[in-house]
């Protein structure tokens, strides 16, 4: 890169200013913001919401899950405790985070009419789809717009006049549980992402991107950028010396301990088990994942970061996550962790880890032990989510032979006329990640 004196803070501020300018003063009906992992997407959404509210423009915010909505409400409340906020929720029990009830400025209701007149109203896309209005909102912010399906945008787009669409194009695409090849190639393919449809019909909309990842450490940003965002590179907001992971208890020489040391040193670790075809819930790999987590906790880890230089914070269970491709794998890991007496470590699939952040992640490689490489397991977004949740280190547990598997199964998805071919494809991204991981390999026969 040519930017020798790159100031990440200034670059990010410039991008944010341009986005806010287009949002508040632009003439187009929409603004699209691409954000790499951990680039301050939520911060941007909150800031844009506050500025729009300050400008006296009523605003609706569309997020994809209840957890995302609640998170945004809490962030808004934190930034401006005086701003009245409406949380529209479904009529199910436990429809929203009970923490919202403690905030006097937040009004919750299952009916949009109860929230009329509030400067900001937030809900999920699914709930907004049931709302009818006579007068549309002047402004909307659509969060995680790349994970929103086109048909879901169709249901809510009539509610607002202008929109700010924010999302991460590298994460998992939305999916349909039935075939949708019938509409492939149509600009409004209902199973495509909302942004794809939006831009197909409105190609002139201003598009911005956030250039700096504040989450990913200097060791991870170049790989994630190269492997998953080859045409829209970004960099880390911190330098190589800014983050440090250290362990009080020295290594006992076992595979898990060696891979932990490797990852603490370099940011990446690959714990490679002997090659073997296994069922999805490969018991050995699952136990290896659990063992790594157990040792991470036992060895008294401490993480130092730019947030508090010189003050190492203990690496606790809530700062560790395990990522898998399938739900049954996550369930198996949870069971294995429970056997080892580990609680409070997040274990989830890539889909559910989207948008979350941890100090250390342990990933069961999606292709580990598989005899074939299906489109699901090759999906670029899945690997990207799994490889970009960490602030310090990422440890991948995998059977040997994934490289051969990739070579045996080049991607052979049917080509659909009129669809945008996504780059990079999963095959290429997997190879890029694997090449990097192989430099941090620790072989282990449990």
């Amino acid at each position, binding site marked *: 890169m040519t930017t020798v004196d790159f100031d990440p803070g200034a670059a990010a501020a410039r991008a944010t200013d341009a986005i806010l300018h287009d949002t508040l003063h632009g003439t187009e009906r929409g603004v699209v913001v691409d954000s790499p992992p951990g680039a301050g997407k939520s911060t941007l959404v909150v800031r844009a919401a506050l500025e729009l509210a300050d400008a006296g423009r009523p605003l609706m915010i569309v997020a994809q899950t209840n957890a995302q909505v609640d998170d945004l409400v809490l962030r808004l409340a934190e930034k401006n405790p005086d701003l009245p906020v409406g949380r529209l929720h479904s009529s199910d029990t436990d429809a929203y985070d009970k923490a919202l009830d403690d905030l006097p400025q937040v009004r919750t209701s299952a009916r949009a009419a109860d929230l009329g007149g509030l400067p900001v109203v937030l809900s999920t896309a699914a709930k907004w789809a049931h709302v009818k209005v006579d007068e549309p909102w002047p402004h909307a912010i659509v969060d995680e717009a790349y994970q929103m399906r*086109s048909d879901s945008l169709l249901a809510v*787009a009539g509610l607002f006049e202008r*929109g700010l669409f924010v999302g991460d194009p590298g994460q998992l695409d939305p999916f349909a*549980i039935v075939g*949708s090849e019938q509409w492939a190639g149509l600009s409004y393919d209902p199973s495509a992402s909302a942004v794809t449809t939006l831009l197909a*019909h409105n190609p002139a909309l201003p598009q911005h991107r956030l250039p700096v990842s504040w989450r990913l450490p200097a060791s991870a940003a170049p790989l994630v950028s190269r492997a998953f965002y080859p045409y829209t590179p970004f960099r880390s907001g911190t330098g190589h010396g800014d983050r440090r992971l250290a362990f009080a208890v020295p290594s006992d020489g076992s595979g898990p301990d060696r891979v932990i040391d490797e990852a603490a040193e370099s940011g990446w670790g690959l714990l490679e088990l002997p090659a073997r075809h296994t069922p999805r819930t490969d018991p050995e790999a699952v136990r290896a994942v659990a063992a790594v987590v157990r040792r991470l906790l036992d060895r008294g880890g401490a993480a130092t970061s730019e947030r508090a230089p010189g003050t190492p914070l203990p690496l606790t269970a809530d700062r560790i996550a395990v990522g898998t491709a399938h739900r049954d794998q996550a369930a198996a890991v949870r069971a294995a962790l429970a056997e080892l007496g580990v609680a409070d470590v997040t274990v989830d699939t890539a889909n559910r880890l989207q948008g979350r952040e941890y100090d250390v992640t342990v990933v069961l490689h999606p292709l580990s032990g598989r005899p074939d490489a299906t489109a699901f397991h090759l999906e670029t977004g899945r690997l990207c989510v799994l490889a970009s949740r960490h602030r310090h280190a990422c440890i991948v547990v995998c059977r040997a032979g994934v490289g051969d598997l990739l070579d045996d199964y080049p991607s052979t998805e049917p080509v659909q006329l009129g669809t945008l071919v996504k780059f990079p494809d999963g095959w290429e991204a997997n190879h890029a990640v694997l090449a990097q991981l192989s430099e941090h390999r620790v072989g282990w026969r449990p």
Partner: protein
Amino acid sequence: MSLITTLARLEAVSSGRAQPTATVRHRHLSERPLVFVPLTTAGEAGAPLGALVGTDRDAPRLLVVPQPRDRDLRFSFLADLADTVLPYLDSHAESVEAAERTETDPETGKRVKVEVELCADAPQLIVPSRAGLDLVRLLGRSMRFRRTAEQDPEAPHPAPPRIPLLGRWLTHYGERSRVPGSALLLALTDVLSRHWATGQSGLEDQHLGALLAWIDPPDGTRGDEAARGAELARDAAGQLLCPPAGPATDPAFDNKLLAPAIERYDRARTALAAAEDALAADDRLAALTAAEREVRDLVESRTRPTWDAVWRGLDLLRALPQGAHAEERWTRDRWSFTGHRDRVLAGEPPQPRRDDAVTAANKLAAREREQARLEAQEALDDPLVMAGRRLAGEAFAGEVTDVVLAYSEGKRPSPRPLVTVRTDDRPHLAERARVYRSLGGKPQSAELVGQEAEGVLVLRVLDRMGRGREPEPGSVPEKGDRLCFTLFEHEQRGGAKLPDPQDTPWTHGGPPGEPAPEAPDTVTEEDVL
């Protein structure tokens, strides 16, 4: 592929016989389905070569195009097909029963009940394999925009009168077959492989002969051997003993038998056209008839085995009792049929070439709902399917070991009994996760309170216990009851209403505008050979 299907396939491999994956039939089968066994010509998309079609297994109607590249002959084939299919459809369109439907009143905007007709039964089309479904769609697309002489007297190549109508019906059936669980148009290989697992791949299951050999091998043979024979065995002349179910034909048949026969037919036709006197014409007409007869015999020889196989497959399926919810799904099919009948009667134009944004989104949403509904209903109808879900951690069965009556907090406490269930299954349950059981055909929900020990779950029952303080009798599980709870919901909620097509928002290109009448493709040289 689920674990239980993998297991069934492994068992099929080792036993040499397909293993059942269902104990009931999950699709409605009509008393009198219309079976359609089409063949197409190699090298030309959608050019029919012939078909066996009909409702009587002993007397199918044979339709043949002796020269598939001749578009007049193709039209007369399609007209004959319309003469067979449309009366069958019409026979169901007339017998109706009264039904109620909720509609939005255009004046008041309120939801009101209206009396409407619902066809008492719907016509069911059966094709041998999935490729047959694609051909039905293709035929529908190729026919529904044709103009008849009545519609457009100036058109150079008017289609016979009933062809556009048949095209609209085939299009409707082709679209409906994409809806999970629907049974208006079925591919037999799909239905069979839903009910049996063979020891071969899903792709190989699309060979009807091989699939039947796995499920019901001839006496004294193993299914895998019989399937191999069905795929590969050839007679002395190099022809397959079990012709593929089509619509594609075997290249050896095309090259050695069909192409020479068609060529003889062409020569006879040219000769007849060149005949100079009546006597010669008579002879040559006889030669032409003989040549045509030869092509007909060839087509029949390749479709008849498939025809018989289809009926055999239907016999196998009929031997299974019908699943409890299959009738409910068939009622949806009847609504679908009635709806299209009404659109045709109302003089609406044919289905557009492409769905607009709103229609596409509505179809996708409806199909996703139907898929979830189908998965839930199949599991509820069939203990073997439920076993698969239990194995996958999506359901659990067990015995109630304790029931403690408890109440909700609040002004009017309602019963919230705590039920302890001991199970050997390993459900993927998180704290406060919802589970459902079937109580008199309706789902009763409960939430997980905690896990006392390995396999001992405490659940809090949440609903369907009546309005009073005491739960209604029979609504709370009792000690010793054997119950099956699912982690998935039994019923599907309706989705949000999408805007009308004329209100398509700016993000999706705005309103589609007035539908312009579809212009016919311009005539090219190839159109008039």
